[in-house]
């Protein structure tokens, strides 16, 4: 057998010793490195009683086709016991194009719901009381615009902004690094993000204006350490910009939220979440002098790894997702999305998404893992892996500091190249059979076809027709005036949020607003890093 002489590593390539014991913990100072659950540096979790006090939020990311279809799915998910909503927008919306723009051809409603104006947003949330449900919106480059629409819908429902609870993703840095849904160049984009953080600090005390995301970095092929390091360094960048705006750290830091991947390597993932909390707590306390305890606590959403789902033997994906979800729960996640078994093929069907939600409910109510905070804390292996993950992530953070921060690093192509190299290395290992993917390069079998969600092909025509009617119906002089005012604000240094709110209330479309901002900020083209 070759097994005995084989080098064992985590899925990210971190070497693993044959056995860990007390001597591996000799460098650990329990008070400094681990602490108590709910106590600094929060390695063991941000709450003393963790899931006894409150379960994680079960938040399935969904949205497709028209706002009407998506609204129907949201009512279904809430009836099934889901406890929060998470909006997926289609690619035209993510890129700031209206449904009737030429670049939207073939893409309307495909990867999420199509929202081109406040009228669409009103439909998405019809019959859903925004004061009672928390809503997360995965939107980045035009996040400020979609958030303005959301705030306007709340106004219409008579819900005070101070009562609103939820999250906009609004993490533009990881777009340049990994997911590539950017519109404007990095600096004006950062100004928009800072506008939302500042506006949120003053008007929406219970809303997270950003979800600093490693998820997409990992999906692009990074290692666990890269995911952790680049995400936290992005967080540092947002903090620096908000401080430069004149906010004090404790004014906005409690509302910074995070989003991590839950990948296949069980212990590596748990170590990653524990190291994340610890690094952030020290960074906030020592680098920024935060005093408010809530500023020190890293709260995160987790999603199981989409890139780990296989097209072959798709029912196996239920098992993968359950294990990944268990890692997120043992790692102390505040909210969780579990992927559906059919997502290597398409957006999930209703049957598949129900199994995914039931997976979380089984973990929460049947497995018993919710009875104790950080139940794996003190494991020789896990504590050693947590320390190693922290060390390696801090090393990356130091290198990016030396480059002059994350924007300079992005402009130099540094994180992009590191990720591309890691993803190529991993793929080579899969090709060589060194990494086994069940059903893909081992244990292959003939697949039975599964039932898939069909996106209504008339979604695009319906959306275009609604837009044409809206453009006739609204007060176009008012639209022009609000867009002119927005353009002037963008040219200056004022916060753009009040101007965005005026524009969306006048039913200016997402495309019109994005064009106004493009005319001031310009568009971004990346250098492709192979």
């Amino acid at each position, binding site marked *: 057998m070759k097994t005995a002489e084989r080098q064992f590593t985590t899925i990210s390539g971190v070497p693993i010793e044959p056995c860990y014991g007390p001597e591996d913990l000799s460098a650990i100072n329990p008070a400094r490195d681990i602490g108590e659950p709910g106590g600094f540096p929060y390695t063991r979790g941000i709450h003393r009683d963790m899931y006894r006090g409150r379960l994680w939020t079960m938040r399935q990311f969904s949205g497709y086709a028209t706002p009407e279809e998506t609204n129907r799915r949201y009512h279904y998910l809430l009836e099934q016991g889901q406890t929060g909503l998470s909006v997926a927008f289609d*690619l*035209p919306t*993510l*890129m700031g*194009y209206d449904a009737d723009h030429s*670049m*939207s*051809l*073939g*893409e309307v409603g*495909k*990867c999420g719901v199509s929202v081109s104006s406040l009228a669409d947003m009103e439909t998405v949330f019809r019959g859903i009381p925004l004061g009672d449900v928390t809503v997360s919106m995965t939107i980045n480059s035009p996040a400020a615009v979609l958030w303005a629409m959301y705030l306007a819908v709340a106004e219409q429902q008579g819900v005070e902004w101070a009562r609103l609870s939820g999250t906009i993703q609004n993490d533009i840095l990881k*777009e340049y690094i990994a*997911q*590539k*849904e*950017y519109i404007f160049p990095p600096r004006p984009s950062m100004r928009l993000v800072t506008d939302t953080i500042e506006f949120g600090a003053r008007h929406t005390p219970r809303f997270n204006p950003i979800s600093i995301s490693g998820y997409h970095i990992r*999906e*692009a*092929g990074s290692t666990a350490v890269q995911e952790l390091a680049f995400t936290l360094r992005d967080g540092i960048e947002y903090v620096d910009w908000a401080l430069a705006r004149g906010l004090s750290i404790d004014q906005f830091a409690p509302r910074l939220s995070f989003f991590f991947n839950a990948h296949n390597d069980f212990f590596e993932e748990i170590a990653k979440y524990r190291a994340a909390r610890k690094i952030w707590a020290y960074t906030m306390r020592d680098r920024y002098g935060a005093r408010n305890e809530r500023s020190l606590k890293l709260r995160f959403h987790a999603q199981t790894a989409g*890139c780990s789902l*296989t*097209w*072959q033997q798709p029912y196996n994906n239920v098992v993968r997702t359950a294990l990944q979800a268990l890692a997120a729960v043992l790692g102390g996640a505040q909210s969780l999305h579990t992927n559906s078994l059919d997502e*290597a*093929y*398409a957006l999930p069907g209703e049957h598949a998404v129900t199994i995914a939600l039931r997976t979380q409910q089984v973990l929460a109510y049947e497995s018993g893992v919710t009875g104790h905070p950080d139940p794996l804390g003190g494991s020789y292996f896990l504590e050693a892996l947590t320390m190693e993950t922290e060390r390696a992530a801090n090393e990356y953070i130091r290198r990016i500091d030396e480059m002059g921060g994350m924007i300079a690093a992005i402009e130099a192509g540094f994180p992009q190249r590191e990720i*591309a190299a890691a*993803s*190529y290395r991993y*793929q080579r290992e899969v*090709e060589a059979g060194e990494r086994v*993917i069940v059903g*893909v*390069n081992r244990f292959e079998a003939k697949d039975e*076809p599964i039932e*898939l969600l069909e*996106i209504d092909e008339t979604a695009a025509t319906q959306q275009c027709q609604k837009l044409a009617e809206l453009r006739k119906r609204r007060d176009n002089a008012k639209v022009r005036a609000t867009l002119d005012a927005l353009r002037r604000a963008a040219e200056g240094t004022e916060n753009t949020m009040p101007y965005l709110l005026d524009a969306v209330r006048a039913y200016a479309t997402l495309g019109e607003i994005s064009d106004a901002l493009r005319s001031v900020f310009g568009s971004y*083209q*990346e250098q*492709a890093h*192979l």
Partner: protein
Amino acid sequence: MTRPIRVLVAKPGLDGHDRGAKIIARALRDAGMEVIYTGLRQTPEMIVNAALQEDVQVIGLSILSGAHNAIVPRVLELLREKKMEDVKVVVGGIVPDEDAAELKKQGVAAVFQPGASLDSIVQFIRAAVGEGATAP
């Protein structure tokens, strides 16, 4: 002397997920091919123009957004208009079986679905352009 196979790897549409495209580009290059990667958000017109300018034998399109039925036929149409039918078009990404069959009927040389090995893609391209063709 044999001339290396020239391949244009392109990302059409709005989709920014370029992990697959970049891995394929590197794998083809490591297999001795000359690879031109277009970067993101290319229209069919931009892709066919680049194929013409770069004198490639193969165009690889990476699409994960579900927009393949709108984008790929347009690329094929433009190739016909420019009398470039000898350029092989291969597609990789999330393409359901029925769509893959339809695209092949329209003239796509191959569709590689998730889980396809890099080796199978390299072998296919070599066979499709007839490796060993001598330079003019």
